[in-house]
């Protein structure tokens, strides 16, 4: 297999990997509302500090 073909195969594998990731997340994405903040999780974690 030539380098060029190797490169194309790698790019195709990466695209397929990325598509799979997005597809597996779609159902969860659909549950989100605008009020869900990207840093909510950290606030929840820190809020449980024992001191």
């Amino acid at each position, binding site marked *: 297999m030539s380098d060029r073909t190797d490169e194309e195969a*790698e*790019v195709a*594998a*990466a*695209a*397929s*990997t*990325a598509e799979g*990731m*997005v597809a*597996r*997340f779609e*159902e*969860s*994405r659909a*549950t*989100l509302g605008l009020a*869900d*903040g*990207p*840093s*909510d*999780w*950290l*606030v*929840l*974690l*820190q809020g*449980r*500090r*024992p*001191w």
Partner: protein
Amino acid sequence: MVTAVAATTEALRLAGAWQPALNCFVSLDEENALDRARQVDALPVASGASALTGVPVGFKDVFVRRGRRPRAGSAAAVELDGAAADVDTTLRAAGTVDIGSLHLDELAYAVTGRSEALGDCRNPWDLRRATGGSSSGPAAAVAAGIVPLAVGTDTGGSVRLPAAWCGVLGLKPTYSAISTRGVLPLSPSHDTVGLLARDVALLRAAYRALAAAPHRRPTAAQRPSARPLLDLPVGVLALPDGTDLDADLLGALATVSQVLARLGASVGAEAMPDLGRYNAAAAIITASEAAALHGRRRHPATAGEPWADYQAGTRTRLRAGTLLSSGDYVDALRFRGRAVRLVVEGLFSRRAVLMAPVAPTMPPLVEELASTDSTDLGRETARLIEFTRPFSFLGLPSLAVPAGFSADGLPMAVQLVAGPWQEEVLLDVAEALQPVLGWSQRRPVLPPSDQWPVAGCSTADVRSPGVRTT
């Protein structure tokens, strides 16, 4: 009392004996380690000896340490400089002796312990088998008894998985509990420093020295010694439909459940129906962040070609990350808020500890992994961390605990998970299990050299600091 020099000399002797079979060290720094040990022994007793004083330690090669820059198991030029990692400074202040840098998967972005740049790391319990990764060297070095304590990193299971396959304890603390300054990042929203040890007391001492938080004294001390876990509510993960868990590991979960009940714990099943969703969101966050940090790197020797200096599997993962959108990334982060609320306010309001598998399989043969094509390997990697990555996503403390041996003599393990900042509870449970399960008494034996499957890396190759190039 063992002096630091005696402990370090023994660690270096064992490293020399095991290294050609295991390939667990990237560099061994004998001269500096012995100098440092002499300094530790010379400290006045009044300066306060601790459980960590004079303890030989190894670091996964992702930490900036005194006079050492990490190469992260890569032929690529890894650009990490600046002051020594907080972990290095703190452990040094506590009296440990750094003897060298340990093996890892490239950029800590895989979980098998196989490496094109370093050669494969081998499992001390069976040299034909993989250690797991990415903290492959730390797990192998602790399992072989070379060092009693090693420092790794865990982004999706990289301490817990190799700890499980090598039969040692592996702690991933609460997200942000231990400083990651001076540590090569992979996915900063998940990255944690983790610790590997054979003995719970030493692991606890190291965690306490390193953790940013003051410590809540565990309640175990007030419990009767015969039933040290009296009334502790422990949930056992109800395995999702379709889970393909090795029969030996299923047996180990049942055995540990019984032992926990005997020790007084109140044990019952707990379902986590969204485990797959947490894995899906974590995959997007990790891939996006890793690609942002490492995907655009250009090696001077391959001008214009950003990928050539990484090994094939790393390239595919980084390329995939560049194809995700900012919307995917932010939505995955947003989903995490919902997930943490559900788990912390739900499951961990009922249970102090959740028990789950670590990896779904026993350590595979290195040759099997080598013959697996990259698509299948990607799928297998996701499967191997299906029970560890969700707890990285949630930021919760998790501990891999050895759980006996299979009929083949391979180590088995279970994972204990607790609510945020409850590391001490996990350590209490492990402390109660240690004398019953007895993992710290059994040690792997180095077979004669004609039984080593491949030529590893000799001690001479790694004697001076710096990565071995192949």
